[in-house]
């Protein structure tokens, strides 16, 4: 594989950049693989990369019905954080933060990881207490957390509405300074390129139509490009999880919903980190290009449409305007939607299933992007070793039966139904 560096850039400049190697190939599917990952998004590609790198499984394929990186890894708001209260979520995501910090070097691909901090704003004493508690939990797990008072928040976001007569005044906030953002597409492409270089077949435009299962064991997968034999299959299909579950006669604690995001026209640097509004569901950051990147609530009803509905966008941006009045003078550049695999306790599932050789990675709700590296790392371990890693041992499928839920915000099931 061609190494990306200043030297290769200069060298290729002399040939007008006509001779770059392709970043990943476009192979025909083989008859058989040792393992197949379904879903060529961030999680699927990361899983393939770590299967090859950490577990020396290289006779594997990633199959994707569209093109790689065309789903949620290309549709998110690029936020990376590990500000979780529960041990299982905190340790899992903090391990992921370590992977993020080294990712550009490891992949020889600039994922533009930018640890610029996240502030969750509080608008009442009760919320400040809850954040103090969460911050303490985070620090016990070795994650940086700083409780900011109103004046300290003002230093970070002086353009927010700090007047006294607002409905939800800013009391303070919880900050994770090491959180940040990354270039989302680069994450998918970087993983794809490295996985490809280690021999992984990345097969695009290959839709799964069914599964070959005998005596409770996976034997293969049927696709739009022929039947492929394999003994191990990993599902990384986010919003399409329920569709494949139906083909497997499984019912999952997951509903598929549409989440929207939007960006404004680019403006000069204004907002350094990521800020979330505490009195509504709204979060905002500024991209390197200067666009304000914003998101918030789900549309609120089951949806497979990768586009949203205006009442939700209006509702989300109403919250945004209450926090940052300057937004009223900004033009919206784009809005889009992605379909989320909403789990019933808000935490993901990375586990084996009752079918031998079938592994599942789903339930990422609003927050799959930040966990891309650690999700791939633990899922690869689970597939290769046929047992879960300690890090994902609590992200089990049967926790909904045993009652060991990871209800991070204490909101109960189906929190999106209000």
């Amino acid at each position, binding site marked *: 594989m061609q190494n990306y560096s200043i030297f290769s850039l200069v060298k290729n400049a002399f040939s007008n950049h006509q001779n770059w190697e392709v970043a990943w190939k476009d192979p025909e599917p083989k008859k058989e693989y040792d393992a197949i990952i379904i879903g060529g998004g961030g999680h699927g590609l990361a899983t393939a990369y770590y299967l090859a790198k950490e577990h020396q499984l290289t006779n594997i394929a990633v199959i994707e019905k569209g093109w790689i990186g065309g789903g949620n890894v290309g549709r998110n708001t690029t936020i990376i954080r590990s500000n979780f209260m529960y041990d299982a979520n905190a340790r899992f995501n903090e391990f992921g933060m370590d992977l993020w910090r080294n990712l550009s070097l490891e992949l020889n691909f600039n994922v533009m990881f930018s640890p610029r901090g996240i502030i969750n704003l509080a608008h009442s004493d009760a919320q400040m207490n809850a954040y103090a508690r969460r911050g303490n939990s985070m620090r016990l797990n070795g994650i940086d957390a700083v409780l900011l008072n109103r004046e300290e928040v003002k230093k970070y976001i002086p353009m927010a509405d700090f007047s006294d007569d607002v409905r939800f005044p800013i009391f303070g906030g919880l900050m994770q300074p090491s959180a940040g953002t990354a270039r989302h597409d680069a994450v998918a492409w970087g993983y794809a390129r490295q996985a490809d270089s280690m021999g992984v077949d990345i097969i695009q435009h290959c839709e799964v139509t069914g599964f070959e299962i005998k005596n409770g064991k996976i034997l293969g997968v049927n696709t739009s490009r022929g039947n492929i034999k394999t003994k191990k299959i990993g599902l990384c299909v986010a919003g399409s999880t*329920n*569709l494949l579950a*139906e083909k497997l006669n499984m*019912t*999952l*604690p*997951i*509903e*598929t919903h549409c989440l929207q995001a939007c960006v404004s026209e680019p403006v000069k640097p204004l907002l350094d980190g990521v800020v979330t509004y505490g009195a509504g569901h709204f979060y905002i950051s500024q991209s390197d290009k200067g666009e304000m990147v914003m998101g918030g609530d789900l549309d*609120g*009803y*089951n*949806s*497979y*449409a990768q586009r949203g*509905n*205006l*009442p939700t966008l209006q509702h989300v941006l109403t919250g945004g305007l209450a926090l940052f009045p300057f937004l009223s003078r900004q033009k919206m550049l784009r809005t889009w939607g992605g379909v989320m695999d909403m789990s*019933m306790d808000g935490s993901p599932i990375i586990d084996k299933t009752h079918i031998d050789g079938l592994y599942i990675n789903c339930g990422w709700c609003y927050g799959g992007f930040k966990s891309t590296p650690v999700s791939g790392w633990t899922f690869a371990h689970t597939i290769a070793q046929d047992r879960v890693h300690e890090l994902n041992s609590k992200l089990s499928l049967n926790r*909904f*039966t045993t009652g060991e839920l990871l209800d991070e915000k204490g909101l109960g*099931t*189906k929190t999106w*139904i*209000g």
Partner: protein
Amino acid sequence: MLHIKCPYCGLRSQKEFSYGGDANVKRPKLNAEVTDKEWDDFVYMRKSPRGHHLELWHHTSGCRQWIKVKRDTITHEIYQTAKIEEQIS
């Protein structure tokens, strides 16, 4: 914007309604012996189909009745609405 035809009030904006999820889910009978699986199926497990979906909506800012809506989860087209006790094919 969805427009939902409430069987009591007529065609109204989506903003007046709140969503209640899959209408095919049945609560286990009150006071009956319930297995863990039956309870989990009721509380957590969902088919979440792509295409036709029979669901519950609450006319929160209207007549406050729960209604049934048959809707498409890809196109958001609403095929039929009915009172809660009525059958939808």
